[in-house]
């Protein structure tokens, strides 16, 4: 492996070219856009809309929903508004909708970017090899670390951008459906901002740094997708747990969780940059 300095311009070039190819691949981004729409708009709309409808229904269903709130931690329950500015009491179904919007949909923030990012990252290196373009990159002056970093950012951006756009849609939806019942627009909360701008990008970076490394080591894109699936399932579970805990326990915990994830991501990224071997871009099995 050569020892030249990291050239950020070349890493940016690799990233930009990958993104340009991605924009040309409708067969990739149309299903991903549909998935984002389902997670950020359709599912929340159905659930929150149903809960709001319950608020206008006869007492039986509404009181059952109210009982559900009792399973939430004390601190969380106290954070849910119970009085409107006018002094009227917030209904149980409105409080349940609030809890659902703020605390239970945290997984939405994770599933979509991880899925989109993984889909790109899994074929980042092995895809170049399968298309034969890895030969061009292998013979180019670009350092392995520049290629790795460029590929990682090219996987990160679509996932994270889709999350930000989806998050915007979700916030609008939540405020429009639930806001009037709890005294006005309330979303995103401060903890959600930290989650979206600090924790989620760290989590995406950590997961993708592993998946891009996997992509450099497997023999086919199919195998890369299989293994990235294995990586992303526990990742989603862990991140959901972290996000939920963070939302329930407050900003301090969320910031700390994010910092821990960033440290892990940095270590994994550094290892990935160091360990990618140029010959893996070629269609050869050096240690066959």
């Amino acid at each position, binding site marked *: 492996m050569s020892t030249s300095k990291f050239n950020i311009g070349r890493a940016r070039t690799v990233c930009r070219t990958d993104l340009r*190819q991605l924009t040309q691949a409708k067969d990739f981004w149309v299903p991903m856009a549909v998935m984002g729409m389902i997670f950020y708009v359709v599912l929340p709309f159905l659930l929150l809309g149903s809960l709001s409808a319950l608020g206008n229904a006869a007492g039986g269903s509404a009181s059952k929903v109210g009982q559900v709130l009792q399973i939430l931690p004390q601190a969380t329950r106290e954070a849910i508004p119970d009085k409107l500015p006018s002094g009227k009491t917030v209904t149980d179904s409105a409080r349940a909708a609030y809890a659902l919007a703020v605390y239970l949909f945290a997984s939405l923030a994770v599933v979509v970017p991880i899925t989109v990012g993984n889909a790109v990252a899994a074929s980042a290196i092995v895809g170049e090899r399968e*298309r*034969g373009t890895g030969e061009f990159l*292998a*013979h180019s*002056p670009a350092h392995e670390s520049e290629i790795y970093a460029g590929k990682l950012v090219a996987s990160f951006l679509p996932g994270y951008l889709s999350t930000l756009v989806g998050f915007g849609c979700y916030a609008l939806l939540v405020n429009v459906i639930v806001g009037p019942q709890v005294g006005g627009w309330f979303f995103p909360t401060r903890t959600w901002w930290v989650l979206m701008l600090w924790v989620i990008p760290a989590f995406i970076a950590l997961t993708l740094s592993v998946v891009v490394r996997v992509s450099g080591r497997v023999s086919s894109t199919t195998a890369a997708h299989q293994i990235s699936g294995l990586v992303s399932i526990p990742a989603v579970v862990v991140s959901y747990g972290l996000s939920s805990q963070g939302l329930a326990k407050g900003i301090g915990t969320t910031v700390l969780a994010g910092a821990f994830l960033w440290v892990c991501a940095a270590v994994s990224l550094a290892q990935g940059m160091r360990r990618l071997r140029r010959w893996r871009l070629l269609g050869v*099995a050096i*240690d*066959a």
Partner: protein
Amino acid sequence: MTLVVSDQSTGTQSSEAVLVLDSVSRSFGSRPALTDLSLSVPRGSISVLLGPYGAGKTTAIRIITGALPPTSGSVRVFGHDPATDGESVRSRCGVVSAKPALYERLSGRDNLEYSAALYGLDPRAAPIDAAAQRFGIQPALADKVGGYSTGMKTRLALARAVLHNPDLLLLDEPTSGLDPESSVAVLELVRSLAGDGKTVVMCTHLLLEAEGLADHVVVMHDGTTVVGGAPDELVHRFFPRSEVVVETVAQLRTEQLAALPGVAHFDRGTDATVATVRFEVESPTHIPALVAELVKRGAAVTAVSPFRPTLEDLYFASRGVARGQMIDVRTTPAAPANAGTSGTRSGAAA
């Protein structure tokens, strides 16, 4: 044993060698892909690695740029080791792979701009249009490469390879899959690049491509070098005697061919319907006497023409030797006495 394609044949100083491989080997697991390859390529020359598929040509190219590390041996390109100073080497190399290695979802211009940026050029200032025009693909630059023909892809790959004005061009089967017309055009372009002072290393399994193009030829087989050197030098080594083809009205009888003056070998071939004999003579000065003697013995000679071995003859002659033994050209200046013989040689003069 090692074979060196030395630049001594052209009188070039070794310090001017752009590329030096010394006993380079590469294995994939237990399978050797390249064994003990030594090579020295002078600046401004065209060297052709000649051999069938699987001979190790592509592996050699990959090792030269540092894309693949050698298992053993040393590599110096422009005085640098590609394994430790790869950027310095690769930034001065232009490579055309056996497959064009183009991004099919991008346009031709996008592909060239990508390459320009990776090689440190400003994509807006890079001579993209000039390179595309040189290879005749400028009108298609805005189109997606996925819609290009094979010939256009090869031309685009060539344009991409020269865009950064490299000092060393490495071309791996550049005419693979092309129609004859496009192949000729590509070879003309290679010739013109060499004319611009570029050093070219080209891999091919097509003997005709190397003919008339190569300053140096390395014949490879099964990952090993069979023989190498300047074509004229190799022809002289494998065909040390002058050869002449004599055509006659009727087949010559054995008694007419016996004890001819200055003849070392003759070959009537296996085709009884063709009245030609190829004579190997000790010196060209024997040819008039040979023809006169044949006429004296009753042969109706219709044509006498010199036999000039082609690279194909050379290739098969060298492969014949390779099956039996390797040649060290540094220690064995002349080929063995039977070098260049083939199964068709049927007799020797008394």
